[in-house]
Structure formats: C-alpha cells, structure tokens
C-alpha cells in the first residue's frame, strides 16, 4: 500500500502546486467568507467572540464544498481516472491518496490560517488552540465524506450545487462538535469530550467515505 499511496499522493500534490492559484483561491474564499459575517451582524465584540468558532467552521465547510468538485473532475475529463480504475493497484489506495492530497491542500491550510480569523473575532489563546485542534481533527472528515460526494456527482450536470446539497447535511455533526469544542473552551469547560467525538467521526468516516467513493467511482465509470 505505501508505495502506490505515496505515488498518487505525490502526483496530486505536484499537479496542484504547479498551479498554485486553485489551492490559494479556496484559502482566500475561506478568509473572505469568514470576514463577511461582522458586516452582516455588526461589530459588537462579545457577540463576535461567541459566534467566531461557528463562523470559522461554516466557512471551512463551504470552502471544502467549493474545492471538492475538482477532486476527480480533471482526471475524469482526460481519462486518467479510467486508467486508475483499470490499474492493478486497489482503487481504495488511489481514493485515499487523493483524499489525503485534498486535505493537505485545503483542510490543512485552512487550519493554519484559522488562528488569524479567530483573533479577528476576539477568541482568546486557549480557545484558539482548541479551534486549531478541532479543525485539525475535523477537516479530514470533510475530505473523506466529501470524496464520496464528489465521486457521486462526477460528470453530473449542476454538479457543484448538487454536491453541496448532498454533503452539507452530512457535515452537521462535525460542525456541531467542532464549533462546540471552541465554545466549551470559551466558557471554561475542557473540550476533550468534543475532540474525542470528532476523532470518532474521523474513524467512522474513514471507513464509510472511501468505501462510498470507490463504489461511486465504479458506478460513474461503468
């Protein structure tokens, strides 16, 4: 497994890093969305502190949905994906590698930028660490479940909006416990239980997501 996994992962990263704009756009989108909320709800600091974590998390969900259609689309368009299905290597390894690449290029950068937005919303140090931890555990879930959504909507008309409709409801638990962890930190409760539950979601989605993505890819390219 490691050989094929690293090969595909390296390929995915190289392709994106040659066109850095795509990955950067998602990151900028994340920052812009998160910065819009104060214009809508007003600059009252206490209110902003209370909603900061939720805003960061919702912006992360939207950024994930925005970036997901590209997960398989380019390889589907030029026929590479069909070759990957025909290859002797298990499809699961390829899907896992692509999912990992997606997280490295969207989830991880979002997590690294999130403290800046947290500071804008006046989230203090401890809670800021919790925000980073929750994103670090939670954003891979978005990539894993999102991969299944991307595979299901592959080559379907109106794929982008449809993808959002399919995966956003499934992201609800991650949103609840991701933002909940930070809120707990803010009011002085240890966030461990929330982070453990996020870890449990990560475990479940790493079983369900890639399985569903593989099945959906086989259906799409049948």
């Amino acid at each position, binding site marked *: 497994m490691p050989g094929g996994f690293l090969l595909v992962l390296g390929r995915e990263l190289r392709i994106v890093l040659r066109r850095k704009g795509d990955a950067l756009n998602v990151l900028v989108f994340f920052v812009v969305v998160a910065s819009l909320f104060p214009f809508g709800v007003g600059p009252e600091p206490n209110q902003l502190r209370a909603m900061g974590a939720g805003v960061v998390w919702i912006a992360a969900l939207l950024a994930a949905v925005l970036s997901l259609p590209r997960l398989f689309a380019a390889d589907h368009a030029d026929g590479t994906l069909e070759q990957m299905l025909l290859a002797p290597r298990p499809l699961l390894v390829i899907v896992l590698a692509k999912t990992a690449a997606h997280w490295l290029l969207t989830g991880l950068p979002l997590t690294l930028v999130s403290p800046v937005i947290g500071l804008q919303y006046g989230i203090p140090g401890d809670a800021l660490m919790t925000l980073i931890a929750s994103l670090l555990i939670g954003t891979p879930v978005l990539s894993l479940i999102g991969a299944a959504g991307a595979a299901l909507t592959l080559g379907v008309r109106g794929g982008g909006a449809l993808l959002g409709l*399919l995966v956003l409801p499934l992201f609800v638990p991650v949103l609840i416990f991701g933002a909940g962890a930070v809120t707990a930190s803010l009011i002085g409760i240890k966030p461990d239980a929330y982070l453990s539950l996020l870890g449990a979601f990560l475990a479940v989605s790493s079983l369900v997501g890639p399985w569903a993505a593989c099945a*959906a890819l086989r*259906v799409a390219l049948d």
Partner: protein
Amino acid sequence: MSSELFRFASPQAFFPVAGKMIPWFAALAAALAAAGLYVGFLVAPTDATQGEAYRIIFLHVPAAWMSMFLYCVMAGWAAVGLALNTRLSGMMASAIAPTGAMFTFVALWSGALWGRPTWGAYWVWDARLTSELVLLFLYLGFIALKEAIPDPVRSDRAGAILALVGVVNVPIIYFSVQWWNTLHQGASVSLTRSPSMAKTMLIGMLLMALAAWMYSIATALARVRRIILERERDAEWVRLSQDGRQPA
C-alpha cells in the same frame, strides 16, 4: 417459494400486481384515516394543558414516524438493489423518496403550526425539529441526485450509495443535534415528556399512523408503476399493454 417471490423482482411481472394492490391499500388508507380523524376530532378529549391545539398530533406524529421509517425502507431497497442488482429495487427507492420527503415536510409544517400556540414560536431549534429538517435535506439530496443522472442504472446505484451513507449518518445526526441542543440552551421545551395519554388519543394516533402506512404503500406502488412504464417504454410488453389505451 423463494423463486416464486423473486419472479416479482421483474418489473414486467410486478407491474400488474402493483396495479391490483393499489386500490386495496388506497381504500384501507381512506378508511383508516376516516376512523382516525373521527376518533381524533370527535371522540378524544380536549387536552388539559394544550387545549384543542394538541389535536394536530393526529397528523403530526404519524407524519414524523413515517418520515424516518420511509428513509430506512428506502435505504433497505437501495441496499437490496446494490447487493442483488435487481432493477426493481432502485425503482422502489425512487418511488418511496417523494412520499418520505412529503411526510417530512408535513411533520415540519404541522409542527410549526402546533408550536405557534403552544411554544409561542413557529420554529425553535429543538433537537427533534432540527434533525427532522436535516432529514428533509437528505431526502432532497437523494431526489436531486437521482434527477441529475439521466442513465437509470447509474442513477439507481449512485442513489443507493447515497442512501446507505445517509442511513449511517441519520442516528449520528440525531444524537449530535440532541446533544448540541441540550448544551446550548438546556431543555427549555421538550417534546419527550409524555403525559399519560388518554386511550382514545392513542387509538386515534395509531389509526392515523396505519393510514399513513397504507397511503405510503399505495403512493409508492402507483409511482413505481409510472417509473416502470417510463423506463421500459421500449419493451414489447409495455407497448402491447399501452397500445389499446393510448393510440399514439
């Protein structure tokens, strides 16, 4: 026995059987609904705390039950379709989805109308309301995905995968939302406290629930007949059976 049953996995064999069953289930639904509404509105006593407004439960509770139950049935058909590769299973899943979405919507709508006089608000972010709303989104996603894929085989399989992922998530979403709610605002309004219900109320509700079952079966069968006709329109048996009725 089993081969006899599996004969009806063929759309051609199932089509006339479904046609024969629909009037029975429709009649049962009408009769049970009439009885349920009679008991609910004329026999059941007025609730001591909620007054007459509680009577919406005769519509609301069966709708909420059916909304969750139908999603499981739909996922069950989807799983059968994926495992055994039977065409009819995917058609059944497609036929059930709109009824399930309708019941979810009715549960939300009637809940809002009940909430206004009882809680003083059409909508509160109560755990049950919220998970019902997410369930509606899951139904809409399933329907939208199936609509978006023109090829029926691909549409059925993709829908089946989505329904299975959804059915794994439904309990997770339900418990997450419940915990989220209790942590955020405490149980300010709770649907779970069940005052010992008058027997006639319970009977009315069960009659309505049975009516909702019969209605769901009848509509699903009627819809699956349409889907069979649409998908098999080039098959000889469809043309032969439809020629007499619709001279093209």
